[in-house]
């Protein structure tokens, strides 16, 4: 509350200040901006370009523009323009006189296609949407703050076609993955800091930033840099305060992203932060309070107790005992509570004709859904963005942001100390309370897994992040046809992590401490020049040339200590053994780029661009690479006489190339300190006898290492109908990725074992459709509805000499030729449609004439395992869609919602598989029941036992009927969902009433995120992925569950 009061005081003080500035005889322009139906429009930019003054409208549509006396000449006629994304811009001529007041109202038509809106296309260049030859999706500020989530990636979900957003889990601060137009790279599991995660490049205000997810290389997670265990980690783009964002452009295909060269094949997310506007000072404060809770449960049985073979036995780990007569415990519900969220955002912006500023502060306190206060994510952000025109045509600007994150997570995943692994395996008749007995000893049901409350209360996973990022820029316009810009960008972050498993934890009973520091530093210099020349009225040209240089530095300091000497002191000094694992990388890059645009007769727009990249990570054999692009857009409606129904039509086509940089140091041979293991965990260190040894690294340097390259063609059409009340956009793309990097095995007799090789080929092609309608547009009732739909067909075309490459994960995630990247490989039953050459004759004959999905059942009634490992699941969705709609009543009530639809996309429900084995899953309650395989599974059956019932008992579920058997296919489930991703109800207090409180606007909002999910998936929310932003998808193995939230916010603007 104290913070709140302080902010209010600041707000009042600053809001009062401008009144004292203007004392001469200025000219004043006032007016009101309404839309086609007469409703007021806020945040419309009203500007007199000639005088370089402007302001924005407040909630009631009114504006007041003061022109300083020094700029006003009596009787001067100037053009005043009102613009806002989504509205058609309008200009009027007005006459100014010192001391006089002019009124100019605007009524702006709707612009569903947003043709007039400026779209950032990269390297500081913007273009109006009508001229774009490529498909770029834009997300506006108001769509990023409607609901509460602090990770900007999550906020993009369902808001553009061709993107797939998956949040790792509902833990506060969890990472989120975004895949744009399909996966174009094959992960390099265990390769530190590799760029093969498939995530796009994030660029903020023209400066590339770090969006890595740094995983601790600790023993708790098998020493590998994957997220199968340990606690969640953040993707670093979540350090941005969503409230600071003015707009986001998503450059999806290579044709759009080519200008970013060797880092752009996975797409580029361009973020533009808010700026101040000349004119009156605007202060705004938004306070949000909310609650979140787990949105979907794992079903558990509470009938049978701790034991085996139907007999109670407290010594074991499983729940195959006798029916319980005593009390039972809710081992799901006991772990979760309602979390709470408090978010405060304050901003102050304004300026005069030469100086503008935007200042913001934000604070989020999020205590998540796991009981107690050990799952939290507290983020504080501050940003100051300001610009000043030093002299005519010379502008300097700075944009500085600081983010502090203080977070605490709960262990998850394949982890003896994880929350759900032990928690859900707990027999229903075992009370997990108290987790410490009278003597302070850890109480668990079998002595193997941590009691979940021990995991919550005693184990620790902490993250402390400090990050400063921003830029300083000089913008110089010596002539009206030339503009030069130099931007220096800096991004520095430090993430201090502590993983503590105290004495008595069951992963390392003697105690474990992992301490890590991840330092990330990026410095970039960007120099661009833009030159425009109108050769005639019908032929306008512009040329952009640029140079950029980037330094990226990453340092990981990690030390793992084992065995605490004294309890309760979690320092490395207090451990018995310590193992360091440092990693450092430096990457320099230097790029030249140029782009030429030609507009012919305001209807044909041609763009050609090229970028040349040199990276220190490229092999010397080819130190620089070229990335060209071409695009053309033709506004048909200017030339052809189209039916009256069609108010705008544009066809566009584009071709381009973009790259994905290779991992650092992949070109080099090296030596390593060694530990030689005989294969059974008996080993000798190369420091044997006290002298240090070095062995040749098994990784052979690749003399020809180069970036992965994607070539993409896209074509599309944009149409508007009924005076722009409806619009339709359709895009087709076909992207072929060559030179995708694999870690290729070498003949060990060469002296090496592995080498990075540019050998794989992947194809992505698909369709994207957007449709926007405003069916009703009355003065007191506006209804708009829009949606996007996209489908992507991903296929691995070649992996060089091999048929598949294992990508890690649990269920044999792999790249397999002829299948999408990341399919799941496992065993299945003998299935008639998929019999291999090795299938026995009796199976083949039984299958004759049977349906393809029929299962061969042995004489005992049980299905028979096919020993051949094959593709059993595909985490890529068939299609995704987003549908949004809003209803506006009486200009001050708005109800808006967003549905997120994913059709297809398999998830491996390893959690259910393991719980089948342990006998705690609800499905195992049928134990002892006899039925045929067909009755249990719903699958058609053939074979001698097709109609033979068998007993679904412990032996079955602990064998091939459970998750620890070989048949993984039965736990691969369809992860389709329809999700009420966002819903919000806004109420704007009438302007007059707001003024009484000294505010120009007061708004109240009720909002919810993920409030409802419709899915057939049997476990937690199928929007889950144990491995975060890695290319492994659809992994559900005791991952912490997803959450939904409900918030109330009040916003005050002055």
């Amino acid at each position, binding site marked *: 509350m104290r913070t709140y009061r302080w902010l209010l005081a600041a707000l009042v003080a600053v809001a009062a200040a401008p009144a004292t500035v203007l004392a001469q005889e200025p000219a004043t322009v006032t007016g009101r901006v309404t839309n086609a139906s007469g409703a007021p429009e806020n945040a419309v930019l009203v500007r007199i370009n000639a005088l370089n003054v402007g302001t924005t409208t407040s909630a009631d549509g009114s504006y007041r523009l003061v022109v300083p006396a020094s700029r006003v000449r009596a009787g001067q006629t100037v053009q005043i323009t009102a613009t806002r994304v989504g509205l058609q811009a309008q200009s009027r001529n007005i006459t100014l006189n010192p001391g006089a007041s002019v009124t100019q109202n605007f009524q702006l038509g709707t612009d569903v296609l947003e043709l007039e809106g400026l779209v950032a296309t990269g390297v500081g260049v913007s273009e109006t949407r009508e001229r774009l030859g490529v498909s770029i999706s834009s997300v506006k500020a108001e769509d990023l703050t409607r609901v509460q989530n602090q990770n900007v990636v999550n906020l993009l979900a369902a808001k553009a076609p061709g993107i797939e957003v998956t949040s790792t889990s509902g833990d506060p601060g969890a990472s989120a993955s975004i895949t744009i137009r399909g996966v174009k790279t094959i992960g390099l599991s265990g390769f530190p800091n590799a760029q093969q995660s498939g995530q796009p490049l994030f660029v903020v205000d023209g400066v590339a930033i770090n969006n890595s997810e740094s995983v601790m290389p600790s023993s708790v997670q098998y020493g590998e840099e994957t997220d199968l265990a340990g606690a969640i980690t953040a993707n670093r783009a979540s350090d941005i305060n969503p409230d600071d964002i003015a707009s986001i452009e998503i450059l999806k295909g290579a044709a759009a992203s080519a200008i970013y060269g060797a880092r752009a094949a996975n797409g580029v997310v361009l973020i533009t932060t808010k700026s101040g506007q000349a004119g009156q000072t605007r202060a705004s404060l938004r306070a949000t309070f909310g609650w979140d809770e787990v949105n979907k449960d794992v079903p558990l049985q509470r009938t049978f107790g701790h034991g085996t073979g139907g007999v109670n036995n407290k010594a074991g780990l499983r729940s195959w005992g006798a029916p319980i007569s005593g009390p039972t415990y809710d081992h799901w519900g006991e772990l979760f509570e309602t979390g709470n969220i408090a978010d405060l955002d304050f901003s102050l912006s304004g300026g005069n004709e030469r100086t503008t500023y935007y200042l913001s502060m934000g604070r989020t306190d999020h205590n998540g859904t796991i009981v107690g206060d050990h799952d939290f994510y507290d983020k504080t952000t501050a940003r100051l963005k300001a610009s000043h025109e030093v*002299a005519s*045509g*010379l502008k300097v600007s700075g944009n500085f942001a600081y983010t502090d994150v203080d977070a605490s997570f709960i262990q998850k995943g394949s982890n003896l100390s994880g929350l759900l692994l032990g928690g859900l395996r707990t027999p229903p008749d075992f009370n997990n309370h108290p987790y410490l007995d009278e003597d302070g000893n850890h109480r668990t049901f079998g002595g193997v897994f941590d009691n979940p409350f021990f995991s919550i209360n005693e184990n620790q996973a902490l993250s402390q992040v400090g990050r400063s990022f921003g830029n300083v820029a000089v913008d*110089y316009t*010596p002539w009206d046809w030339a503009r030069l810009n*130099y931007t220096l960008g800096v991004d520095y972050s430090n993430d201090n992590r502590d993983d503590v498993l105290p004495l008595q934890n069951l992963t390392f009973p003697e105690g474990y401490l992992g301490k890590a520091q991840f330092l990330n530093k990026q410095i970039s*210099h960007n*120099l661009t020049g833009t030159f425009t020349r109108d050769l005639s009225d019908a032929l306008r040209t512009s040329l952009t040339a640029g*140079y950029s*240089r980037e330094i990226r530095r990453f340092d990981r300091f990690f030390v793992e200590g084992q065995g605490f000497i004294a309890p309760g002191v979690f320092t490395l000094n207090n451990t018995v*053994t310590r193992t360091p694992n440092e990693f*450092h*990388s*430096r*990457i*320099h*890059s*230097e790029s030249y780029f140029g782009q030429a645009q030609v507009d012919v007769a305001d209807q044909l727009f041609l763009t050609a661009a090229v970028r040349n990249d040199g*990276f*220190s990570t490229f092999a*010397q054999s080819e*130190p620089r690479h070229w990335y060209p692009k071409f695009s053309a857009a033709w506004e048909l409606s200017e030339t052809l006489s189209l039916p009256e129904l069609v108010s705008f039509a544009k066809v566009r086509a584009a071709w381009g190339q973009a790259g994905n940089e290779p991992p650092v140091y992949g070109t*080099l*041979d*090296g*030596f*390593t300190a*060694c*530990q*030689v*293991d*005989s*294969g*059974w*965990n*008996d*080993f*000798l*260190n*190369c*420091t*044997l*006898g006290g*002298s*240090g*040894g*070095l*062995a*040749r*690294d*098994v990784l052979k340097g690749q003399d020809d290492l180069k970036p992965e390259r994607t070539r993409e063609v896209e074509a599309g059409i944009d149409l508007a109908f009924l005076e722009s009340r409806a619009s339709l956009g359709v895009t087709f793309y076909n992207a072929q990725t060559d030179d995708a990097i694999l870690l*290729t*095995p*070498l*003949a*060990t*007799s*060469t*002296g090496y*074992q592995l080498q990075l090789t540019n050998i794989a080929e992947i194809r992505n092609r698909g369709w994207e459709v957007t449709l926007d309608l405003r069916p009703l547009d009355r003065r007191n009732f506006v209804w708009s509805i829009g949606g996007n739909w996209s489908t992507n067909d991903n296929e691995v075309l070649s992996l060089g000499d091999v048929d598949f490459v294992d990508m890690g994960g649990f269920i044999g995630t792999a790249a397999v030729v002829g299948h999408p990247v990341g399919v799941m490989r496992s065993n299945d039953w003998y299935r008639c449609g998929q019999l291999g050459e090795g299938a026995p004759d009796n199976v083949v004959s039984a299958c004759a004439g049977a349906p393809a999905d029929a299962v061969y059942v042995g004489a005992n009634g049980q299905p028979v395992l096919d020993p051949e490992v094959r593709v059993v699941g595909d985490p890529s969705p068939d299609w995704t869609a987003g549908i949004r709609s809003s209803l506006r009543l009486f200009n001050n009530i708005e109800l808006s919602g967003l549905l997120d639809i994913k059709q297809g996309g398999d998830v491996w429900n390893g959690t259910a598989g393991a719980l089948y084995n342990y006998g705690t899953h609800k499905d195992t309650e049928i134990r002892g029941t006899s039925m045929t395989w067909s009755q249990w599974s719903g699958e058609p059956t053939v074979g001698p036992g097709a109609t033979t019932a068998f007993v679904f008992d412990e032996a079955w579920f602990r064998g091939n009927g459970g998750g620890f058997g070989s048949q993984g296919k039965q736990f691969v489930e369809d992860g389709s969902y329809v999700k009420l991703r966002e819903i919000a109800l806004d109420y704007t207090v009438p302007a007059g009433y707001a003024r009484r409180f000294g505010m120009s606007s007061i708004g109240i909002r009720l909002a919810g995120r993920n409030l409802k999910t419709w899915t057939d998936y049997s476990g937690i929310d199928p929007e889950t992925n144990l491995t975060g932003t890695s290319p492994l998808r659809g992994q559900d193995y005791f991952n912490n569950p997803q959450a939904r939230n409900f918030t109330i916010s009040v916003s005050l603007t002055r």
Partner: protein
Amino acid sequence: MQFRKMASVCTLALAGVLAGCDDFLSGPGLDTDPNRPTAAELDQLLQAVQVTGFVFQTGDIARMSNMWNQAMSGIGRQQQVRDAYDVTEDDFTFDFSRMYSGGGLIDIRGIQEGGTELGDRTYVGIAKVWEALIFGTAASVWGDIPYSQAVSDVTQPELDDQAAVYAAIQTLLDGAIADLQAAAGEGPGDVDLVYGGDRAKWIQAANTLKARFYMHWVESQVAGSPLAATACAGNCLTKALAAAANGISSPANDFKSFHTNTAGEQNLWYQFMNVARVGDMAAGKALVDLMKARNDPRLLHYFEPVGGEVLGAPPATETAASKLADDGRGAPDFDQPIITYLENQLIIAEAHARTGNDAAALTALNNARTAGGWGAPLAGLTGAALLTEIATEKYVAMFQNIEIWNDHKRNCTPSLTPATGAQLPGRLFYGSDERNANPNIPAPGSITERNDNDPNPCP
């Protein structure tokens, strides 16, 4: 306008500064790896080579050799399965790979090249003995292996015939001896964990190794195969005797691994039996019963009694049996014998016995028995009985060594009943990692397939 000009000049200057440094894309940390050194000293390479060599000689292959020859037994989990010859190419991929990659041949050759450059022939000689030890052993357990094309520019090295590898190894050892005899260069000194850089001891070890590898072809020579003449470049027995005459002269000069009580430095057998895979392997019934029947003085040095008695487990049988002696062969700091005086004497004994010189054979056998801790010398043994006694003594003496398998393949003493099937295993499968990337490597066949130097199965 003045200002405009100035600003333009500034901008151009800035561009010049930025574009000026030509080496922006190279330099420390860019074209070098801050995480990995790009060069290594001879001492550092030798350290990796000997650690890798110790693991190769006393690790999984040694355990498999001792299980399959029933000196040990797999009594639990995977080892029980492996003891019943149920193995795949994955079982041997670590060892197959490690003899070539880091710490193996690539670094051994690095020492040889570096030593030659520095004129340090001592270092070169020691590295050659290591190469001979590892690749001679490899040829004995795998047969044909990639060798002449290994660690070269050839991306898919071809298999060399087993006999050709042995011939090359003998030449290599001759070169090693010549290098060491040249007494040039300081050598590794204390970094050498085997002999502390002592050239004389290395020369002795090289000679015993030569004798060992000649003996490997005796069975082939007896069977009349011309390959034996290739492998031995002459009569294997004569050559063996000549080499052994200059072999290891006393137990003090034994070639042994190096271990301490520190974690990561302990005897691998101790780590396997007492730390990593407790309860998976135990004493073999064949060896224990033999030692008990002969009242062998080493019994309690080898095995720890269970309930007052040393017990051996039948092959691949889950049963209570003795583990290695805590104060002896299973001690964490016990240095495992790899090439020994005992072996050298028993080679002399066997070679003489096979050439009819029983008196000389008996003398050598008694030398070995004295070193092995036996009391009174044996007398009066001749002919087949003498050869059997020598082979039996060697079966016990070579306990834990890979040679126990090579000796048994040749001598078939003692008589062993296979854990399953009719025959004992004949050779190891090639590692799966090698086969996956090298089309010259055949798919695994039967585990009882035999190498060229071992034409006959044991009766």
